[in-house]
């Protein structure tokens, strides 16, 4: 047996994204079953890749808690609809980051050369129940959460504002920008044609400092991607996106010393991805970011956490318009989570939108000339992170 070669020395197979599909996201898709919803995204991804069900070697699916739809391990029931019968089917669940983690698990199957072409999907059909019910099942003995989901995050936003002396209006700028961006994305849930910055600023204050217009909606939706190896990408009818780096990082839910404003797991995860992709200066070298911003203030917070802005300077970057359309670093040209939030799919939508950008396939919300894009997802108590960096060229290392 050879002992000279370390595993890391074995080249991974480059992973290309050759198909992307998503549903039109809405509050309630009453015309389809759960299978019908997921299937719709899958069919669009296959059509984009010009592949059929028989071309898929394995299926990797993710979603947030099963209680949302009241179906335990729904992948078992979905196997038939997703052409998975006779194939490997894996289910990932990493809380809100799950859409991103799911795509990374699928990418590994190709990178390891275990499978050549993998279908990956994520979904949530929130209208089957009520997300707040699913998120706040009463647990005996525990003090009930005294506020809704926004109330969970609002104190962290206040801590950020306090720490950076950010002015109050930054959150409204993000919400206005993302909702305007959504008008150029036909799949986005919220299309608020008449929205003005003033309307955002005067919307009801729900969990001070978070206003109504700065919160994400509750959506039914699904997202799917087809990932493949070099040979598969060469056959694809449209340009692939290539995975240049991908990573997951987790830290505990609650612990002494946790920085809920800028969690180290997020910083470490981004640093790992940049290292893999050979990115030294993310702000200059990355053209567009799809980041998971469920409440508007998370844009400046993540800009700092991901290394796009110096500590305390994220809000200045947002305020300057750098993250808007035509800005130096467009963030969430799709409209982001603030405009579309099928929880389990929200992370994969970030990954998929990043891929669409470098494929030049983002339509009306295309960032001209985007060559490198970051997709970002997070979940739990700001503790689970998943990211990938995709490019328009195959990775060189």
């Amino acid at each position, binding site marked *: 047996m050879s002992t000279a070669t370390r595993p890391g020395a074995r080249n991974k197979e480059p992973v290309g994204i050759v198909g992307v599909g998503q549903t039109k996201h809405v509050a309630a*898709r*009453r*015309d*389809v*079953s*759960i*299978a*019908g919803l997921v*299937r719709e995204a899958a069919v669009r991804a296959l059509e984009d890749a010009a592949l059929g*069900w028989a071309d898929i070697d394995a299926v990797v699916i993710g979603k947030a808690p099963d*209680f949302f*739809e*009241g179906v335990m391990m729904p992948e078992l029931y979905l196997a*038939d*609809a*997703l*052409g998975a*019968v006779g194939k490997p089917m894996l289910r990932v669940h990493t809380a809100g980051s799950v859409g991103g983690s799911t795509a990374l698990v699928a990418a590994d199957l190709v990178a390891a050369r275990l499978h050549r072409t993998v279908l990956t999907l994520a979904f949530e059909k929130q*209208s*089957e*129940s*009520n997300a*707040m*019910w699913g998120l706040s*099942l*009463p*647990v*005996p*003995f*525990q*003090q*009930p*959460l*005294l*506020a*809704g989901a*926004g*109330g969970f995050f*609002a*104190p*962290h*936003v*206040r*801590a950020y504002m*306090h*720490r950076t002396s950010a002015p109050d209006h930054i959150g409204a700028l993000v919400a206005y920008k993302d909702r305007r961006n959504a008008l150029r994305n036909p799949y986005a849930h919220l299309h608020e044609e008449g929205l003005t910055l003033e309307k955002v600023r005067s919307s*009801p204050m*729900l*969990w*001070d*400092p*978070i206003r109504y217009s700065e919160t994400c909606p509750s959506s039914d939706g699904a997202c799917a991607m087809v990932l493949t190896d070099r040979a598969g990408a060469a056959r694809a009818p449209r340009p692939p996106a290539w995975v240049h780096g991908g990573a997951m990082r987790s830290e*505990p*839910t*609650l*612990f*002494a*010393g*946790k920085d809920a*404003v800028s969690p180290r797991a997020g910083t470490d995860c981004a640093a790992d991805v940049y290292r893999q992709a050979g990115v030294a200066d993310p702000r200059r070298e990355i053209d567009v970011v799809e980041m998971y911003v469920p409440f508007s203030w998370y844009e400046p917070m993540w800009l700092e956490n991901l290394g796009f802005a110096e500590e305390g300077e994220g809000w200045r970057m947002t305020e300057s318009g750098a993250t808007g359309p035509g800005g130096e670093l467009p963030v969430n040209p799709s409209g982001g989570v603030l405009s579309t939030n099928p929880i389990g799919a929200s992370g994969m939508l970030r990954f998929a939108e990043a891929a669409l950008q470098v494929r030049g396939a983002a339509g009306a919300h295309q960032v001209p000339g985007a060559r490198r894009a970051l997709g970002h997802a997070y979940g739990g108590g700001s503790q689970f992170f998943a990211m990938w960096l995709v490019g328009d060229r195959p990775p060189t290392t």
Partner: protein
Amino acid sequence: MNAAPAHGTLSAPLVVEFPFTRSLGPVQSAFLTGLRERTVLGVRTADGRTLVPPAEYDPDTAAELRDLVEVGRTGTVTTWAWNSAPRRGQPLRHPFAWALVRLDGADTALLHALDVPGGPAQVRTGMRVRIRWAEERSGAITDIACFEPAADAADDSTRPAARPHSGAFADPVHGIVAEARLDYTYTPGRAQTRYLEALARHRTLGERCPGCRKVYVPPRGACPTCGVPTAEQVEVGPAGTVTTFCVVNIKAKGLDIEVPYVYAHIALDGAGLALHGRIAGIPYDQVRMGLRVEPVWTEGGRHPDHYRPTGEPDAAPETYQELL
């Protein structure tokens, strides 16, 4: 919610219950509406098989299936099991057989209950059964009350074949409401039991990690950063410092608290991290980071009802920055 004396740790019932609203899609909508009208529909695959109940997608090819057919209401048991002690939610209250039944004209079998008053001795694979319809039908799988034995000795050749059906009915059902209740026993474990027992005496006991020496409140059984058990109990509080907060202006479901109110993170003195609580006894717009607070208990409350200002000067930022 009582202590279970056998082993001294707490346990309590936990009921998870929700009426899920399920939209059906065209095939399932037609099938369930059909049941309401005492019509059983299947779906035809490209290779000519008839699937009953109708699948939306072919299990073999993944092809979308839309070609509906009507099949018989009588069929043949392909396998069965005798359920002598029916559970909550199951189709019949008295002992019955679960059976997979291949209806006449179908190539696959449907799972349902089979009512055989004579008991398991009267059931066999291959027996002929027919649908007993529920008296009140709404467009759900339970519109079939169950199967019952059929005195039908006809051989295969005389049985009706599947015949095309448009799937169209007046007033189709597009959704079902699926009530689901599961009963659990929640057991919070040793560390939380220790914490809760002390809390009942209005004392807050954290637990110190033997590795990093941080004090966890409430303790969860392990130091999450070191991955080792915590055991050394340390009393913290009762007073603490507001590290951050938000003002809640909308009522949360199931919470009977007048808005606006302040939801805050509170680092009890001596604790390594903040817990959460409501601040009262001060106008909501005067709550601030660094405010010193103490718990207020109500009769019978397991947790402090809220926290109120102690009147001490605010804590200096450097004393709680690490806890923010």
